[in-house]
């Protein structure tokens, strides 16, 4: 065609590249995390941050699935709690070494996620959410009812040797040291996901999320990439669950309950799923808020609810979206 079709409007470019300022801030935050335990913070703050970083891992997994495949899972507790249960059950019932138990738990959970993805992928949208919820809830019921195995709602205590990976078990059960472990895990996961989403695989899965049929028509398989995303997201959640079990040494079916899955999704959305790091940010905000509210009033539920409503309405692209546009504005750019 001869003539250029000129767009009438000023081009509205959705930034696909992160502004360098954000990258710098990100690296700084990551580093600050590693010195936190030496700053002499009150024990409560540190143990709060430790649980928050595990929740952050779970939320990152959930958010990644939303971002990359468009699926809102209401069942990620199955992978988080599932890995925790696997770890504890193996520690109680098998003679495997502590190391093997810790490594196998997320691996098995991930394989399960991969296998389940073929069932889940038959649906989409709300049906996907509900199907994932049903599967997770069935696991919850199973652990609840199979008393001989998992001791029902009273939960189960982990039994690991005093030393694993050459470290004292207490290393994993004290907030200051465990914080380093879970913080590193979180950082590695986020960096890994950022790289992944910039790769060809990232673009392809985004394309499939957008229009699965057309992706097939331009010559791509669409089932496996989606299954891989689900498995990966399950892996991330199960890493969080493994760390949780290790840290707490005690698990209950609450870890499998739909309300935990729902919470993870809330956190991911509050944090914003457009960026990989949004859900993690959301987790820290949420956990700290809930703790704060819980300290001062028994009406934490209202407070959390109201803040949730306010955040979601005022910042529709989540906390991370707000941060991004703030950064852009400071840099003199336009609001995107």
């Amino acid at each position, binding site marked *: 065609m001869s003539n250029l*079709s000129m767009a009438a409007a000023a081009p509205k470019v959705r930034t696909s590249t992160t502004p360098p300022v954000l990258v710098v801030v990100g690296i700084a935050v990551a580093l600050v995390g590693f010195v936190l335990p030496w700053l002499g913070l009150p024990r409560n703050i540190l143990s709060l941050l430790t649980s928050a970083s595990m929740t952050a891992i779970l939320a990152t997994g959930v958010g990644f699935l939303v971002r990359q495949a468009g699926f809102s899972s209401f069942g990620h507790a199955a992978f988080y709690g599932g890995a925790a249960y696997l770890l504890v059950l193996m520690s109680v019932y098998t003679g495997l070494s502590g190391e093997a138990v810790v490594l196998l738990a997320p691996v098995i959970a991930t394989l399960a996620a991969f296998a389940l993805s073929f069932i889940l992928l038959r649906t989409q949208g709300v049906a996907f959410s509900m199907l994932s919820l049903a599967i997770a809830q069935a696991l919850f019921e199973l652990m609840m009812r199979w008393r001989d195995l998992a001791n029902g709602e009273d939960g189960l205590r982990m039994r690991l040797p005093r030393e694993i990976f050459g470290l004292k078990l207490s290393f994993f059960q004290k907030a200051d040291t465990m914080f380093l472990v879970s913080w590193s895990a979180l950082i590695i996961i986020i960096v890994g996901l950022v790289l992944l989403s910039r790769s060809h695989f990232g673009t392809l899965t985004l394309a499939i999320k957008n229009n699965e049929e057309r992706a097939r028509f*331009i*010559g791509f398989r669409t089932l496996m990439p989606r299954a891989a995303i689900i498995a990966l997201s399950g892996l991330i959640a199960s890493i969080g669950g493994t760390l949780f079990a290790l840290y707490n040494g005690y698990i209950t079916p609450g870890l499998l309950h739909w309300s935990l899955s729902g919470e993870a999704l809330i956190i991911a959305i509050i944090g914003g799923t457009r960026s990989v790091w949004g859900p993690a940010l959301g987790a820290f905000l949420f956990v700290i808020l809930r703790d704060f509210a819980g300290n001062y009033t028994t009406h934490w539920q209202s407070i959390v609810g109201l803040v949730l409503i306010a955040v979601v309405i005022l910042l529709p692209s989540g906390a991370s979206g707000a941060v991004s546009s703030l950064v852009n504005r400071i840099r003199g750019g336009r609001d995107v």
Partner: protein
Amino acid sequence: MSDTYMLEATGLTRRYGGFAALNNVSFKLRQGEIRGLIGSNGAGKSTCMDVLTGRGRNQQGTVCLNGQDISRLSERERRAVGLSRSFQKTNIFPELGIRQQVQLAARKAEFDNTEEVLAELSLTAIADRTASDVSYGDQRRVDLALALVGKPKLLLLDEPAAGLTIEESLAMARHLRNLAERWKLTILLVEHDMEVIFAICDRLTVLHLGEVLTEGLPDEVRANPEVIRAYLGSTFA
């Protein structure tokens, strides 16, 4: 022209309930040919494209590409053997950048002239915008770009000129002609814009009520009274 056919479609049929949207349609395309597929609304043109590309279920008939029977292949596999298409109802990746998605489509075929395709479809200036933010006409050209990149052997285009100005339609026609020669493309073109059809098609197949009404050179078809009555009307007769 050689005597071997690039595409042989025999007995293509699709039913919806009792109603045959496409009924036992057969035709053959030579290498390098641009074939126009025309017919009144609901004649079965889009359905024919669907059946050729394996879209949807309950289809019958055989499709041979360069002698290979591809009737049992999936959409993806058909693309891999060189069959590519555009859609009547715009079918793109709304959240992806225009360049990004065109490059993605090119990747499978190890095709690196995406910039050229973008330029020729006047998409360069808006290539970095998100597809959902450009006008309808622009989106239609993105759809076309997705079909074009990757140098398919056989290109099926479903109303590529719809919504374009006459100028642009004719420019697109020239462009297709050009591509067909340079890339040795074979094209099956569905179009209601007769200027485009008569400008570039080597032969025409006319569908009516799911069946082939007639087939022939453009001038023959144009003069066919049945085609005039059922389809062309006064303007082009």
